[in-house]
């Protein structure tokens, strides 16, 4: 029989945990939920747009009553649990309803703090916490004029903005001298205040409320200095306190909140707690993102699954007031050990401050243009060393200059018909309506439902910005360390380390040895695992072709109509009349629809069927040509110019150098495609500074450049070092390729990898450490011994024949035929 799980609290944290649990193991528990409010579950962070009238209550309901029925969850709504009997393991509600539990989850959230002043219980004094409060405010706004909001924090300003939208004249009263002092520094707070005043809000700063005055309902608010202002409505929004009364009276250890460990268990291990009611490692949270992270870990533990631990969250904040863009994260005030990087442009209304310690971002405040907030937040959470980008970091990631989006980076200002995802043709309106209608909270959700950002990924920043803007700042950002895919909780780095440490040499061994959750993995993890196995064990590792994407399985690039392309290697971009003649003959014989010169200095034949591939390869092979690996996560091309052999400006023999580089590296598998180039002089005709590894010849030797990219996101290479001889070029090329092969995540190109680990790190490893450089180069050459067999020649001779021929052919009338 299934064990019984009782959840106290029908809010976002409790239900998110139930949802995660149902995902992992729907039969593990009989689940009963008690909720004090008379509704299903709704998205509390969306109360602000309900107050402004931008949304209706129905639009923010995330789980209607049918959801509970469909998932066999018993819901007691409008019933407040008043007692937990931990001896008999049951809970008792105010109306006498009882429920027994094997495991109990406390998700009672928080209560708004009401300042203890005379008159606090008068009619017309409300808090801003639930739908009941919002209804009270909306009703008052219909009949009355003057509203006073006590509290100039996030919640207070959202309430004030909402009431102003409803036509009230609103004064915000704040104890401190600046707004949102827990999220903003003085400058940003000043800009915010100016902008809100322009919209019509009044502010009373440094004002301490002494009493709320009125006979039956509120009439005035009086302050310590004796001044009074008229008020028909008073909203107390001075903060929240974890709601831990029930836990406390049940003898569960509480401090500022219900104390939990890293698996979200209280001091009674049968009793869990999640959300705003908990205190974890001394910290309480009042935002949504941490709560989702807790829910995941808690559900995992309830299902006796995995080893997930909650280790605390770094949070970011965004104000949900339409037209005001501000962002803050981490420790933005700093201390004597930190330094500030500041960008301020008052007339454009833009302000950015980063608090940095030891070259790592500790906090960020942004006002006006917050599109890069997500990027800074990632750098903060990943503790990325920013020393290489300090000079430019305040100007943002410039990811919005990516190809496919023009220079349109004001996602908020875009029209609904503006195309966000150029690959899948998804417009802003499609994404926003999917987010609101389907209550999407993560980038993964948006990808699954709209396909936006699921192909090339260049619009990921825009989609995240839209998500943040639509659901508010505390949308569920991707976790700090991302699991490889839904088949495991392990990260790419965890898996790579385990493959080496545990000597896992087949994809199947990895999945078994690391307790994969699915039988055979998925299309995301299998190719990654296969790459990790063969890169860690080039000799003994089993290359599992069924785990390779079709292109690498048949050594040709699948096209949109299911046909394939054939692109033979042309070493360093060079060819001969004899090779050209063979290519021309093949193109004619097989009626090739398109012959095209590629961007990598070679010739592609397009529109071939699978069956045609081996015979074509046989002919090319006979003429000495090999696979160009134009289909693979592998060494693609080495582009060259004609160098000093012909060019009057050439300083070195870049053509021969390019050919040598290509002969050395062809056939190697890499985390993503890998391109090189060698230019004969700084005019750089081979475009070496947008390649993964580029050589620019100069009179004194060779400049080496790394981490460039000419695709989705143009990135100019970083200068690695200068060397004197061709041999050194080859050694550095091998070492750099090898460290990238060993350390980057699958499908991570050198550009994002380099940005993640930092150029300084790579320099330390291969420029400053000669011994390690030689070791890396040796590992590369060792691996190449097993990789440089031409896959085309092998298949022309019959390897993997089944890939290229149908199993059977059935003719009209189902006649028996020999295929």
């Amino acid at each position, binding site marked *: 029989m299934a064990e019984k799980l009782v959840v106290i609290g029908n809010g976002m944290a409790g239900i998110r945990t139930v949802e995660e649990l149902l995902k992992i193991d729907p039969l593990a528990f009989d689940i009963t939920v008690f909720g004090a409010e008379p509704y299903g579950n709704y998205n509390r962070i969306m109360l602000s747009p309900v107050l402004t009238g931008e949304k209706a209550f129905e639009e923010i309901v995330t789980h209607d009553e049918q959801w509970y029925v469909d998932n066999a969850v018993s819901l007691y709504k409008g019933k407040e649990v008043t007692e937990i009997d931990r001896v008999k393991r049951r809970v008792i509600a105010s109306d006498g309803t009882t429920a027994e539990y094997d495991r109990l989850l406390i998700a009672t959230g928080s209560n708004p703090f009401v300042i203890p002043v005379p008159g606090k219980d008068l009619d017309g004094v409300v808090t801003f916490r639930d739908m009941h409060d919002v209804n009270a405010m909306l009703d008052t706004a219909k009949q009355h004029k003057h509203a006073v909001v006590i509290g100039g924090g996030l919640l207070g300003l959202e309430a004030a903005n909402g009431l102003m939208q409803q036509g009230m004249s609103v004064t915000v009263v704040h104890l401190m001298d600046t707004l949102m002092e827990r999220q903003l520094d003085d400058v940003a707070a000043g800009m915010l205040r100016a902008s809100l005043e322009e919209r019509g809000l009044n502010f009373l700063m440094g004002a301490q409320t002494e009493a709320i005055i009125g006979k039956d309902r509120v009439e005035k608010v009086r302050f310590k200095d004796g001044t009074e202002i008229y008020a028909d409505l008073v909203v107390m929004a001075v903060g929240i306190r974890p709601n831990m009364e029930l836990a406390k009276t049940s003898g569960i250890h509480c401090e500022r909140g219900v104390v939990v460990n890293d698996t979200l268990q209280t001091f009674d291990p049968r009793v869990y707690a999640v959300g705003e009611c908990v205190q974890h490692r001394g910290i309480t949270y009042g935002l949504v993102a941490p709560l989702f992270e807790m829910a995941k870990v808690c559900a995992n533990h309830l299902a006796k699954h995995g080893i997930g631990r909650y280790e605390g969250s770094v949070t970011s904040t965004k104000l949900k007031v339409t037209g005001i863009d501000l962002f803050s994260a981490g420790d933005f005030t700093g201390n004597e050990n930190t330094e500030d990087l500041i960008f301020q442009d008052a007339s454009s209304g833009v302000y950015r401050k980063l608090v940095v310690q030891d070259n790592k971002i500790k906090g960020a405040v942004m006002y006006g243009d917050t599109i890069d907030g997500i990027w800074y937040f990632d750098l903060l959470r990943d503790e990325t060393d920013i020393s290489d980008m300090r000079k430019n970091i305040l100007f943002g990631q410039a990811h919005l200059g990516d190809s496919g989006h023009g220079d349109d980076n004001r996602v908020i200002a875009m029209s609904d018909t503006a195309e966000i995802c150029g690959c899948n043709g998804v417009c802003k309106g499609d994404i926003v309506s999917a987010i609101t209608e389907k209550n999407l909270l993560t980038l993964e959700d948006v990808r699954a439902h709209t396909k936006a950002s699921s192909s090339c990924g260049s619009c990921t920043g825009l989609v995240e910005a839209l998500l943040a803007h639509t659901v508010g700042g505390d949308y569920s950002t991707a976790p700090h360390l991302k699991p490889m895919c839904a088949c495991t909780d392990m990260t790419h780095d965890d898996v790579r380390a385990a493959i080496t440490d545990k000597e896992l040499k087949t994809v199947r061994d990895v999945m078994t040895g690391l307790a994969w959750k699915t039988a055979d993995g*998925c299309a995301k993890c299998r190719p990654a695992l296969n790459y990790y196995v063969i890169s860690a064990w080039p000799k003994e590792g089993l290359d599992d072709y069924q785990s390779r994407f*079709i292109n690498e399985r048949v050594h040709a690039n*699948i096209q949109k109509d299911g046909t394939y392309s054939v692109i033979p290697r042309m070493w360093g971009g060079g060819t001969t009349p004899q090779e050209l003649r063979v290519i021309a003959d093949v193109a004619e014989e097989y009626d090739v629809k398109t012959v095209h010169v590629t961007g990598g200095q070679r010739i592609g034949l397009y529109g071939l069927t699978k069956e045609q591939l081996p015979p074509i390869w046989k002919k090319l092979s006979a003429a000495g040509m090999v696979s160009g690996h134009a289909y693979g996560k592998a060494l693609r091309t080495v582009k060259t110019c004609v160098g000093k052999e012909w060019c009057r400006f050439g300083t070195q023999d870049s053509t021969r150098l390019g050919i040598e580089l290509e002969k050395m590296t062809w056939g190697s598998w890499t985390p993503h495609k890998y391109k090189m180039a060698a230019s004969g002089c700084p005019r750089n005709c081979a475009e070496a500074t947008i390649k993964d590894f580029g050589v620019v010849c100069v009179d004194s030797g060779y400049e080496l450049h790394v981490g460039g990219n000419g695709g989705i996101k143009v990135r100019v290479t970083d200068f690695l070092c200068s060397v004197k001889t061709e041999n050194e070029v080859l050694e550095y090329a091998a070492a750099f390729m090898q460290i990238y092969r060993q350390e980057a995540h699958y499908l991570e190109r050198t550009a994002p990898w380099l940005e993640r680990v930092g150029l300084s790190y790579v320099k330390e490893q291969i420029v400053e450490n000669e011994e390690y450089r030689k070791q890396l180069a040796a590992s590369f050459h060792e691996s190449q011994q097993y990789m440089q067999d031409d896959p085309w020649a092998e298949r022309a001779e019959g390897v993997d024949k089944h890939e290229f021929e*149908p199993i059977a*052919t059935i*003719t009209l009338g*189902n006649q*028996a*035929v*020999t295929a």
Partner: protein
Amino acid sequence: MQAATTKNAQGWIEVGQLDDIPKLGARVIKTEEGDIGIFRTAEDEVFALRDECPHKGGPLSQGIVHGKKVTCPLHNWNINLDSGEAVAPDEGCAASFPVRMEGTTIYLSIVAEENCPNK
């Protein structure tokens, strides 16, 4: 070896042997009405689907097989091998065809199941 296709009395056509299809792989059966993909799971179950993804017609037989699903090589839709239905939130289906095993011999009926209009 490509198999000779023979049809027996019940409308079952012999299309080959289990080992003609790699584990977690697929092969193509050519028919007058278009290609049919024939898939083999890790547990040696065999399924047949119209070789056209309901999304943009991608050849499902070229995808990666995992569990009882195949991922289309063009845009990564996941299709259930037993029903031909796309895995939610995607919507659509590829017609599925009855398969019968006799020992290691695979028989196929080219009369599609009634599961979807895309026959």
